[in-house]
């Protein structure tokens, strides 16, 4: 869609963000709440000489976007919990082979088919630990239709910059919801393109442990493998080689964390001055949470608000500094309490109170407010 103001659902915004970022290959398998992303990509990609392919399942979708990325394309898939589970093995392949791809998980209430297709935030730990082996993911958490657009572009930018898969951990609520969306003019929103791999770079025979991304068909005789490998791609199980690969994956995530902090993409805060307690939330859950904080403030309760924009790498240092003198931390999320463990880990002296919500519902701001007020009165 051209630059301008629209009124669309989060799925359409996500797809438009992908097109804006230069995505030219999408492989997917239908699943709600990701359906509107998939259908919008199917509509839009041919218009920009891109490829939309409906695959036979999510294992294939994940595989196809990795293959297409090595052929030089910016690539994406979108799914929901059941499909995200199926993607885990090949997602691990993308981490190990340092392949830029974007995966959108429009989370729904699980486990299993659960309450298809009601929203949830129960996959946030799967994003962190879902594939076997050590990985260090980058996962965004949009809370509005506009952020579905913006964060999808950021996800592409981080994938390209750090040569890694990135995740947009959306949820059903944000995908279904309609809100105003501003699409900027081409060039107005920064879009990073892939660092090309050429023989003139130093270490031309090494295709891994570097940011430049080679591509098939350029005569490099690439050896791309999900086995442990030397930097030149030759399979090699010597501990020093594999250790270097894993450490490099973690180093990139650390650098990404720093970049996210500098770009103010890690978290945002409000009402923090002299707050004694804080509500931490993200994604759809952050909407009622923010509303509750606003109401509490109106009632003279000094409670602050932190919204995580990135779940992984967990904005640990930044959050730790913010939480230094805080007495109580409420963590609002649409699961039985997942990110709350990350918060508790760095919470210093504070009491950490989980405000979970499952069964396909978004919190009511009133129940969050009640919990905050009660704790405040106690």
């Amino acid at each position, binding site marked *: 869609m051209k630059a301008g103001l629209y009124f669309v659902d989060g799925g359409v915004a996500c797809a438009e963000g992908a097109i804006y970022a230069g995505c030219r290959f999408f*492989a997917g398998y239908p699943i709600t709440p990701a359906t509107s992303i998939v259908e919008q990509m199917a509509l839009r990609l041919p218009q920009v000489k891109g490829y939309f*392919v409906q*695959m036979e*399942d999510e294992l*294939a979708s994940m595989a*196809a976007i990795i293959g297409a990325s*090595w052929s030089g394309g910016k690539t994406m898939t979108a799914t929901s919990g059941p499909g995200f589970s199926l993607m885990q093995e*090949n997602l691990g392949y993308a981490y190990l082979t340092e392949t830029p791809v974007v995966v959108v998980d429009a989370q729904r209430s699980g486990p299993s088919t659960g309450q298809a297709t009601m929203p949830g935030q129960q996959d946030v730990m799967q994003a962190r630990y879902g594939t076997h082996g050590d990985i260090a993911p980058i996962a965004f958490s949009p809370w509005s239709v506009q952020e579905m657009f913006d964060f999808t572009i950021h996800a592409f930018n981080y994938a390209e910059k750090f040569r890694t898969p990135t995740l947009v951990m959306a949820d059903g609520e944000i995908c279904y919801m309609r809100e105003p969306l501003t699409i900027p003019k081409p060039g107005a929103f920064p879009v990073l393109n892939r660092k090309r791999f050429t023989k003139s770079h130093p270490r031309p025979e090494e295709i891994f442990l570097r940011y430049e991304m080679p591509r098939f068909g350029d005569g490099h*005789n690439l050896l791309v493998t999900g086995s442990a490998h030397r930097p030149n791609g030759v399979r090699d199980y010597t501990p020093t080689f594999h250790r270097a690969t894993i450490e490099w994956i973690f180093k990139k995530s650390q650098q990404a964390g720093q970049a996210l902090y500098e770009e103010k993409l890690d978290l945002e805060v409000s009402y923090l001055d002299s707050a004694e307690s804080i509500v931490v939330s993200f994604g759809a859950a952050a909407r009622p949470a923010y509303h509750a904080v606003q109401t509490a403030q109106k009632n003279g309760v000094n409670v602050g608000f932190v919204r995580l924009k990135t779940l992984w790498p967990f904005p640990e240092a930044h959050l730790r500094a913010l939480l230094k003198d805080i007495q109580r931390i409420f963590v609002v999320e649409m699961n039985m309490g997942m990110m709350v463990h990350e918060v508790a880990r760095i919470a210093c002296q504070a009491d950490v109170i989980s405000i979970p919500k499952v069964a396909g519902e978004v919190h009511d701001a009133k129940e969050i407010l009640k919990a905050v007020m009660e704790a405040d009165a106690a």
Partner: protein
Amino acid sequence: MNKSENNLGKPQEYYRERYLRNLPTAFCAGCGNGTILNCFVRAVDDLIKDKQLQHQNILSVSGIGCSAWIPSPHFKGDTLHTTHGRAIAFATGAKIMNPKLQVTVFTGDGDGAAIGGNHLIHAARRNIPMTVILVNNLNYGMTGGQSAPTTPLHVQTSTYPKHPETPFDLSQLMLGAGASYVARWTTYYVNEIVATLKEAMIHPGFSFIEIISQCPTYAAQFLTEFQTGLTPEEQEQFRRQPGAWMLKALKGKKTGVTNGHPRYQITLQEKPIDLGVFKQEKRPTLIDYLQELWNNKGDA
């Protein structure tokens, strides 16, 4: 014959220098995988010489298993060594994003027909242009001789004392799934494999070549027909060189000609297995369709 010569084209050094790397391979002595690699490089060399293929456009994709190690890390060209069963799905993305690539998938009977069977049938149905070489060694070689979907009935594997399932006829499966080029050979028919590969690799659509291959380490006893009535001396030879002896069972009798290629028949457990080129047809590919969509310009 000169030491370095062979009856299949140029001296071995020629192929080794141009097309191979990281030798020796890790295959067991007598394994059919080396033969298949040899056939592949000869087909590639001929196609390059005939200007029907450019070396830099060759992409070999493989899954997990001994057969997946045929191109990776040995073929000097782009290779993508993926996860178990998923090679065809990876290849689908790579091919669509860059249709100039000539994509060959190396897969096993477990990789391609068990865990990856779904991708195999759908790639065939979509007619996505790529060549799938399915190395049917009648078992799971890499993990130690377990039952595969192709394992002959009642043989002993490391998971079943008496394998209970009827084997899958993969070429028939591919015909049913709509593959536009389907051939089957055994590793005995090296010239035929080369000739067929040359056709398949430039075939405008999905091509499937099943190669029944010998796994002397785990599946020698499966090809039972030729073992009966062996003299003690022959039995000793068989014990020492099971791969060579398995090849005897993989040699059939000529039954005719189809699609310009000879037909043969081998017998496995008294059942005839046809070899030859079963189908060769042209029909639109998925990539044709996807690119046609570019012309229906909507509101961009």
